[in-house]
């Protein structure tokens, strides 16, 4: 279990037996469009408010993940979920619909891997046999809560990022068929004093590099041990800074394929998304859609997903506070059948 300072290596690695992704129209127009289970044409998802729309996509993705796993909600012990909204209303209200014992978590955009790591840890420890974990974000709820009204005409700087409308869920089990979660590293808060909420990439990049460094140190591994390393949602600015930071810290990142979810989800030349995608849904839909498929098809053997989160609130940055950031890393390996 506990390996090194802040990592877990699972002795009985839990299996991701099913995943499901639901996204909005902009993600459906991006290069990853064929990787998602459901693509909605309308941002409203047929709901009367943005908040209900966000909750709805999480409900859809969790239900679809359960259906794919061939399980009913009664057969799952816990639902581990979170989102970006105040008091994590999307996950909590979806848990009300699911009627599964619920653990609400908040790690901003790192929630996807925070949830996966905690769920895997619980299953490995024997605290559960099957866990559903999921997260979601919606462009308009994030705009409304963290920035300006969605229709307000403000000019975004090129460092700004576009919150992904999407939800990703996974069903983890003690045994079954699918990719396995073998290790996780829980990150610490890193705050380099960035105060601009329109520059999340620069704020989060040091946290991502810190967690990666801790992961490699604790597990005595290097980038070459992974086929792909993905950061959650650093975007173009954060990605470039992360590479620069790794060069400074002598992490040989060129030995692997290093990608960023925020750069993968949109076509930045054709879509007005500034530096790229962000939000809880970003790393969740890319991991549970794109990467799980490639692991299942045998294209990849071992990946590291480093989901990054900016733990700010609209209040904290208005009061001039800098942005504390965090990143959690999870190792997923092609599994097969685990008894």
């Amino acid at each position: 279990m506990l390996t090194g300072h802040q990592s877990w290596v699972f002795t009985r690695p839990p299996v991701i037996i099913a995943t499901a992704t639901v996204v909005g129209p902009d993600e459906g127009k991006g290069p990853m469009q064929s990787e998602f289970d459901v693509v909605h044409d309308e941002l409203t998802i047929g709901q009367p408010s943005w908040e209900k729309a966000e909750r709805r996509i999480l409900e859809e993705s969790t239900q679809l993940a359960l259906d794919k796993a061939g399980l009913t909600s009664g057969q799952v012990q816990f639902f581990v979920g979170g989102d970006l909204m105040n008091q994590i209303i999307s996950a909590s209200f979806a848990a009300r619909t699911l009627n599964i014992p619920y653990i609400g978590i908040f790690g901003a955009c790192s929630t996807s891997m925070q949830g996966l790591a905690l769920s895997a840890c619980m299953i490995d420890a024997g605290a559960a046999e099957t866990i559903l974990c999921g997260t979601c974000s919606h462009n308009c709820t994030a705009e409304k809560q963290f920035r300006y009204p969605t229709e307000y005409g403000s000019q975004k700087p090129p460092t700004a990022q576009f919150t992904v409308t999407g939800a990703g869920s996974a069903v983890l089990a003690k045994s079954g068929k699918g990719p396995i979660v073998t290790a996780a590293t829980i990150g610490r808060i890193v705050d380099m004093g960035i105060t601009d909420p329109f520059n999340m990439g620069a704020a989060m990049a040091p946290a991502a590099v810190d967690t990666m460094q801790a992961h490699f140190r604790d597990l005595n591994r290097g980038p070459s041990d992974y086929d792909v390393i993905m950061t959650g949602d650093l975007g173009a600015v954060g990605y470039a800074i992360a590479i620069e930071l790794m060069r400074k810290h002598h992490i040989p990142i060129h030995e692997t394929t290093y990608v960023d979810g925020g750069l993968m989800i949109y076509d930045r030349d054709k879509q007005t998304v500034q530096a790229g995608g962000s939000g809880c849904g970003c790393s969740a839909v890319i991991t549970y859609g794109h990467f799980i498929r490639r692991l299942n098809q045998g294209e990849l053997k071992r990946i590291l997903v480093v989901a990054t989160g900016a733990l700010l609130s609209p209040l904290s940055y208005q009061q001039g506070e800098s942005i504390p950031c965090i990143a959690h890393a999870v190792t997923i390996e092609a599994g097969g059948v685990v008894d």
Partner: protein
Amino acid sequence: MANNMKKFTKVQQEYQKMAKHIEPKRPVWKNCFFAFVVGGFICLLGQGIMEMFERWFGFTDQTSGDPTVAVLILLSVILTSMGVYDKIAQWAGAGTAVPVTGFANSMCSAAIEHRSEGLVLGVGGNMFKLAGSVIVFGTVAAFVVGICHLIYDWVV
């Protein structure tokens, strides 16, 4: 900024310098150009509407201002409601923010956004969320200018 930098450690300051170097800069000249063109176009449109009121509806150059502003506000609200105004604003910048259309957009967008929280606490309470400070500081500035004007009249 210099005051801000004091509270950061050396490592943080070094990082911020490095990050600043990598970040793409705001395209200030391009933004200025589009703001000038779009802002100018909105003013031209306003002038056109004003002429129209004067020529065909019997307004004078003292009275044609009010209906012109009303028409511009209406156009802005329609574009905001159709979800177009924010798209134009991304490249027009200050060009759409400074004229009266920008003020209408800030109120309309807030009203639409908070409609789900009800008419009183939602629409009524949030409509001036962005526009409120414009009114407050506009009024304060007008008051100060008014006092100055009064003093000038006394003295001269």
